[in-house]
């Protein structure tokens, strides 16, 4: 089958939706004539014109609000943040407005909105490196989607666009692939697996809230998203050589979360490691541990191990960044801890 990079897969999903649904529009900085800082919206201005591809000023709070207003009145806007760190400039519009409007209106209003952009630590210092998903996982009314492969990215962006709620669509810079700036670096990360690169040309939707078992196993369950999913898979591969069988689950969406798939896996393996690139304190890993305790406590033979970023802003120096962000070694050590080996 045809191979696509993740950047190209996201792009194709957006283009196909825009072709079949004239209510889908784009808003964001440099998304038009420049084609997006990470080239996701490449050529879209040419194909769809300036009434559907809006090159915004640097006004995140403003254009997020415009997206909400357009969503309330019949459009399906996709709002791009050049780096997801900048969505914090629009926090009121996202958290107080988009996420709450459904409830506040007693179910009368809906805001079908995709908020998307890249995140992840790539040597750019504290304001261009954060993982933001926990902030929005914490915000009722929002959905939070995170693709780790090109195949998933296309199917999930299509579902996110069709969804009638505000969806945060989290992309990882190091997973975009070679066609995108930053992608060259990704290729040098040996942990990034060439999985899910076969992408059908026709449109397809992956339902939000369905996890995917990326690798079957029986001894331990590793739950991870985005770049961490790839690191988890490479650990699983190594451990297989020692006769340890790890199951690797990609939740693909944190809100809603596919608890059933996770619980079924834990019922089989009785050991769990959760991995996330965001900080551990009140982070994704904390919520996953709490959920596992709620649903799977009596299946656990050892305390859940979590691997997450250190509780610090991301330092610039590469040696420190590496120390802060979970590495393959950290995941391997956590698996050994949970299995007491």
């Amino acid at each position, binding site marked *: 089958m045809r191979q696509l990079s993740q950047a190209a897969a996201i792009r194709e999903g957006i283009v196909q939706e825009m072709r079949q649904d004239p209510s889908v529009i784009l808003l964001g*900085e440099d998304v038009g004539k420049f084609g997006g800082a990470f080239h996701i919206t490449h050529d879209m201005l040419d194909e769809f014109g300036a009434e559907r591809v809006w090159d915004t000023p640097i006004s995140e709070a403003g254009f997020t609000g415009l997206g909400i207003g357009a969503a309330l009145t019949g459009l399906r806007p996709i709002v791009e943040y050049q780096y997801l760190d900048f969505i914090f400039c629009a926090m009121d519009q996202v958290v107080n407005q988009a996420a709450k409007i459904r409830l506040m209106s007693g179910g009368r209003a809906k805001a079908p909105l995709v908020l998307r952009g890249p995140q992840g630590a790539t040597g750019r210092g504290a*304001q261009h490196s954060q993982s933001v998903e926990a902030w929005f996982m914490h915000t009722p009314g929002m959905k939070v989607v995170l693709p780790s492969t090109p195949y998933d990215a296309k199917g999930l962006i299509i579902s996110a666009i069709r969804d009638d709620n505000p969806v945060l669509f989290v992309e990882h810079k190091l997973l975009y692939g070679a066609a995108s700036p930053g992608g060259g670096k990704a290729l040098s990360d040996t942990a990034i697996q060439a999985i899910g690169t076969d992408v059908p040309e026709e449109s397809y939707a992956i339902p939000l809230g369905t996890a995917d078992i990326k690798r079957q196993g029986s001894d331990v369950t590793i739950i991870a998203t985005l770049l961490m999913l790839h690191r988890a898979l490479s650990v699983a591969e190594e451990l297989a050589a020692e006769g340890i069988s790890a199951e690797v689950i990609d939740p693909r969406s944190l809100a809603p979360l596919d608890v059933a798939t996770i619980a079924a896996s834990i019922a089989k393996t009785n050991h769990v490691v959760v991995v996330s690139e965001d900080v551990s304190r009140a982070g994704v890993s904390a919520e996953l541990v709490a959920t596992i305790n709620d649903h799977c406590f009596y299946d656990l033979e050892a305390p859940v191990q979590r691997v997450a970023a250190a509780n610090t802003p991301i330092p610039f120096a590469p040696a420190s960044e590496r120390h802060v962000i979970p590495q393959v070694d950290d995941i391997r050590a956590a698996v050994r801890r949970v299995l007491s080996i």
Partner: protein
Amino acid sequence: MSNTMEIRRDPVDCAGHDRALLLRMFRKMLEAREFEEQLYYLFLTTAMPGTMHQAVGQEAVAVGVVSALNPDDTITSTHRGHAHCVAKDVPLKDMMAEMFAKQEGSCRGMGGSMHLTDFNKGMLGAFAIVGSGIPIATGAALSARVRGSGQVAVSFFGDGAVNEGIFHEALNMAALWNLPAIYIIENNQYALSMTVAESSAVPDLASRACAYGMPSLRVDGNDVLAVHEATREAAKRARAGEGPTLIEALTYRIRGHARFEAAGYRPSEEVEAWKKADPIERLAAGLLARGIAGEDELNAIRAEAEAAIEDAIEYAQSCTDVQAEDYLSYITAEN
């Protein structure tokens, strides 16, 4: 005023200015230029971490503004901040060590190119969230008032930043309370790919100040003395309790937006035309025209600036690499 201001190439008019000040400006602009030129090669040839944004062609703004301030006045900067730091006397060695992620760096290797900071020099920080330094400088101005320090606070930011709501919030408060603040729009005519006309309904950015009753003006940002004069007036007003000023300095970003960004969205004739309006060359021509310095003396200063950067690189390379756990010392302050 339209944004296509005539590109001026005439020598800077140095009449009536102190010779030492003029030569110091020349030296500072050269240092800022050379710092970034060498960074470009370092990024190409060595494993220099991270990214950078060059202000090549914009040096007269940083140097013109800071040369009109007192050493204890404060500034905030942006993602494109090297020249501001050079102008504010942040030691070149500390800056270069930061670029190399060394423990001796101005931010101990924790900040990097986009977050250079030096409190000893009144450099409160470089803020890489567009617009975010504007209220912070305004707060420093408020603090100067409360403390009765007589300091002025200056915020440097780009033409793109004026479209963040925070620009308006900050300017309103500064004007409302007559704070000793100076706002410098470093209008290099692009915010990444977007021209001013493509992102601002009124491309005359200085005029935004009138909504707050704040004096404002546009100056030729490639004329270091024009920038200096405007800032000196603004600082005088600020110190006299007469409130803030907005200065729009029109200049041009000669290089791409960041490290190797090709800037293919700009007509090459435009870039070439602005290259001929180089602020350093215009000052050199002005110095020669008035006989303030001869070609030999200017060449000697050029050589000194180059040597200073070379020293900084050599020093930085001899510094100690940040160790993995260093960051643990810097997350929160200990009382």
